[in-house]
């Protein structure tokens, strides 16, 4: 009996150990499965993001924003805070502000240090978002027409052309320049009626850098932003 009991105990211990080992294996397998699955999710989503063509992205974001503006009486009556929230959530993730700032500065971009570049991008982004978001508050039943878009295989820099249609006046051309990044297509220029909202600043920026250096330009952008903010309050 003694022996058997001992054996049973030992067997129990053995079973325990086996069970434990089993569980451990299962858990590692599950864990690694999880990891693989998570990786797959990331992979698929990035593949999906890349699969979204630039014209599809422009259309999706535009319609998304317009459908919100159409329903939101606050935005239509000029609620700046709400507009900024909407733009921040829907529009900004699709923009590359570093490229925009570089484009606005032209040759002077290379003169800026890494720290200065960061400040420049921050300030320029604030300025662009503040000034042009307000265009959304002027919304009056406009619709957007998307012009036919053809992309060559392997293209990484394209222009998507749209038109803002308003009854009783000539449509306004609204084009977006986009470049392909690792995380999808990003807008780096917006062109209204042939006027780039970005390069339109180049002369002014070059002039400022020539007279007061890169820090002068940062200063100029910052004080403009402060002035706009205090005017809104």
């Amino acid at each position, binding site marked *: 009996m003694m022996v058997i009991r001992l054996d049973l105990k030992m067997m129990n211990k053995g079973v325990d150990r086996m069970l434990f080992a089993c569980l451990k294996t299962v858990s590692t397998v599950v864990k690694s499965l999880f990891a693989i699955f998570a990786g797959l999710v990331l992979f698929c989503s990035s593949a999906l993001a890349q699969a979204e063509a630039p014209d599809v992205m422009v259309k999706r974001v535009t319609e998304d924003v317009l459908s919100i503006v159409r329903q939101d009486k606050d935005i239509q009556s000029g609620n700046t805070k709400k507009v900024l929230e909407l733009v921040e959530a829907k529009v900004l993730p699709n923009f590359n502000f570093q490229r925009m700032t*570089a*484009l606005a500065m*032209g*040759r002077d*971009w290379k003169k800026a240090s890494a720290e200065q570049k960061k400040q420049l991008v921050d300030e320029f982004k604030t*300025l662009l978002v*503040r*000034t*042009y978001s*307000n*265009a959304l508050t*002027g919304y009056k039943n406009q619709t957007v027409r998307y012009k036919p878009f053809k992309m060559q295989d392997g293209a990484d820099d394209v222009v998507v*052309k749209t038109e803002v249609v308003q*009854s*009783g*006046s*000539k449509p306004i*051309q609204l084009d977006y320049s986009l470049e392909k990044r690792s995380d999808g297509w990003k807008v780096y220029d917006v*062109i209204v*009626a*042939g*006027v*780039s*909202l970005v*390069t*339109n*600043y*180049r*002369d*002014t920026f070059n*002039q*400022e850098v020539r007279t007061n250096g890169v820090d002068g330009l940062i200063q*100029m952008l910052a004080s*403009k932003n402060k002035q*706009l903010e205090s005017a809104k309050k």
Partner: protein
Amino acid sequence: MNRRFLRSPKVRKVLAATAGILLFGGLSGCATTAGHPKDPLESFNRAMFAVNEGLDVVIKPVAKGYDEVMPSPVKAGVGNFFGNIGDAWISINNLLQGKPVDACSDVARVLVNSTFGVAGLFDVATDFGLEKHAEDFGQTLAVWGVGDGPYFFWPVIGPRTMRDTFGWAIDSYVDPVWNIDQVDVRNTLAGVRFIDVRASLLPADKVIEEAAFDKYDYIRNAYLQNRRSVIHDGNPPRLEDDE
């Protein structure tokens, strides 16, 4: 026709003014230092810009009043009416630029809008798929290879390059509104059109006011970019980014 055209006092005045501008531009062009390459007359232009800003103190409230008082359909009708008048000259310019298809489409627009569109008050042609074009003689000259020339800022008229100033003079010479004999009708129509155009620019005012560091500079760049775009019918060749 040609000789009569050149002998007309109106054309002579335009030619004399153009020659004067050219001479003036040539003389003062020497005195300027490094600025915008297309704006050798910047100090003169900035003075004219200031004059215009002063005039706008009076014009803008009138445009605002018009914008607020007139119901949208009326404003649309006014815009369509003058747009229809302009389409005839636009069709000729399209032809001169070697775009016969666009020219025919403009002719069809005038015919459709003048009849079904009740003397141009409604732009039914656009609904029929005949799109409105924006052409002027300055663009035609550009297509023929005439360069921009120096940039000007004129009182009342606003920004124009040398070439587009000349183009504007021709546009005005053939403008049906300015060719109406009855002075009171002519002046009323021209006045309404001017205020209607100014009113249509009101939404842009706020954006420019906020976005620009130097309004003069901002408008100059926007004008030059816009002209480059319309000359190429919205598809200008890409410029080097020089990033």
